[in-house]
């Protein structure tokens, strides 16, 4: 399997070439175009109940699709995309696990499982979802964002504005906090933020869809 992320960073898509027998799993409705002989198999996103939890609390889809190139077929092509224009990055998991924010997951290959983890009330108030998606195992994971993606190493404490966190590695815990004092938090426009603690990597998005909505709402 060959994967390439094209049209970075504004309109990134994942361009996949599958050899006979190979499979890639993608978020529902992620397919933009493909070779017609690819087989699509729809399955629950990690079992019925966990799928339901993910759908209603994690903004993920109840179903995901397996795209398989038939054993006796020729090489197949698949283009995967996301609803918002923006960047896509890939993550190599090597018997490890990573957390993705609701809506960031696009696809994975290899031996990777998708699970849900309780993210906490703080996360929910912070509009980051009541649950978070855990990708775990060995393989490749593709995730996307609205705007560009920034990768940063965190040691100790770090603060991210709500709506800008895309994913973080397992050694990091998240809690809700205020950007500064009461005054600057509410009048300075930063409001509630995520406080991250631990050692690991985080991914941020440079834009935020709810900020676009707030901007647009002024004119509606």
């Amino acid at each position, binding site marked *: 399997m060959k994967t390439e992320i*094209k*049209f970075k960073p*504004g*309109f*990134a*898509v994942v361009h996949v070439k599958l050899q006979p027998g190979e499979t890639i799993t993608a*978020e*529902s*409705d992620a*397919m*933009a*175009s*493909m*070779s*017609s*002989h*690819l*087989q*699509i*198999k*729809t399955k629950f996103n990690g079992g019925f109940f966990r799928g339901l939890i993910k759908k209603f609390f994690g903004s993920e*889809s*109840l*179903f995901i*699709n397996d795209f398989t190139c038939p054993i006796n077929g020729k090489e197949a092509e698949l*283009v995967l*995309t*996301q*609803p*918002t*224009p923006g960047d896509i990055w890939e993550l190599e998991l090597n018997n490890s696990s990573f957390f993705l924010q609701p809506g960031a997951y696009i696809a994975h290959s290899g031996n990777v499982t998708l699970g849900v983890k309780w993210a906490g009330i703080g996360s929910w108030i912070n509009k980051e979802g009541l649950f978070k998606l855990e990708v775990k195992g060995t393989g490749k994971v593709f995730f996307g964002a609205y705007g560009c993606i920034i990768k940063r190493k965190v040691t100790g404490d770090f603060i991210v504005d709500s709506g800008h966190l895309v994913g973080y590695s397992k050694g990091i815990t998240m809690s809700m906090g205020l950007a500064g004092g009461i005054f600057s938090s509410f009048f300075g426009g930063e409001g509630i933020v995520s406080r991250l603690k631990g050692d690991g990597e985080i991914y941020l998005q440079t834009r935020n*869809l*709810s900020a*676009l*909505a*707030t901007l*647009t*709402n002024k004119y*509606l």
Partner: protein
Amino acid sequence: MNIELLHRPANAVAKITMSSGEKIISEAGAMIAMSEDMSVVTSKYAKGGSGGFLKGIKRLFAGENFFMNRFSPGPNGGELYLGTSSMGDLMTRKIDGEFIVQGGSFVACEDTIDVDASWQGFKSLFSGESTFWVKLSGTGQVIVNSFGAIYEVDVNDTYTVDTGHIVAFEETLDFSVRKAGGSWISAIFGGEGLVCEFNGKGKVYCQSHNQNNFGYSLAPMLKEV
């Protein structure tokens, strides 16, 4: 006529340099700027004339504006800038024959081309695209736009494109609408629903993103009007 695309892919704009006698037909509202002596005639367009009312009506259903503008420069030639309302790319290519453009993707073409909203049968109703397609026929340059980036697929046999991702295709291709995957369960619950399958030999131009999906992501956060 020289068409130059600037600021691709996110904020693409077409800069068109025209000699006297050359004409461009564009979708209403696409003009950003132009030479002072450019003449603009707004009409219900049909090739070489003022256009038929029926063709205008058909174009209205195609997601295009009822009226089109015809730009002709003055005696010393002129310059015309065309843009689109969505963030995304533009593409230009010379056609010789027939070229089918998805309703909302048509931007402009040379006056030597006939613009018609052609009925593609009932299948278009279910394809997630607009009911009509804009059919361009003749020889000349055309400009189309996309939401996101445009990529070209050389179809040689068969290729599947999700509804809402088709920008344009060559008339040599035949398309049919079918369910994604082997079963209706996949099609309905897998989120891919109905897809368009192209058969034959020719080029199909796809857009990386789908305006509807972006709209559905944003809409829940917008206030009720």
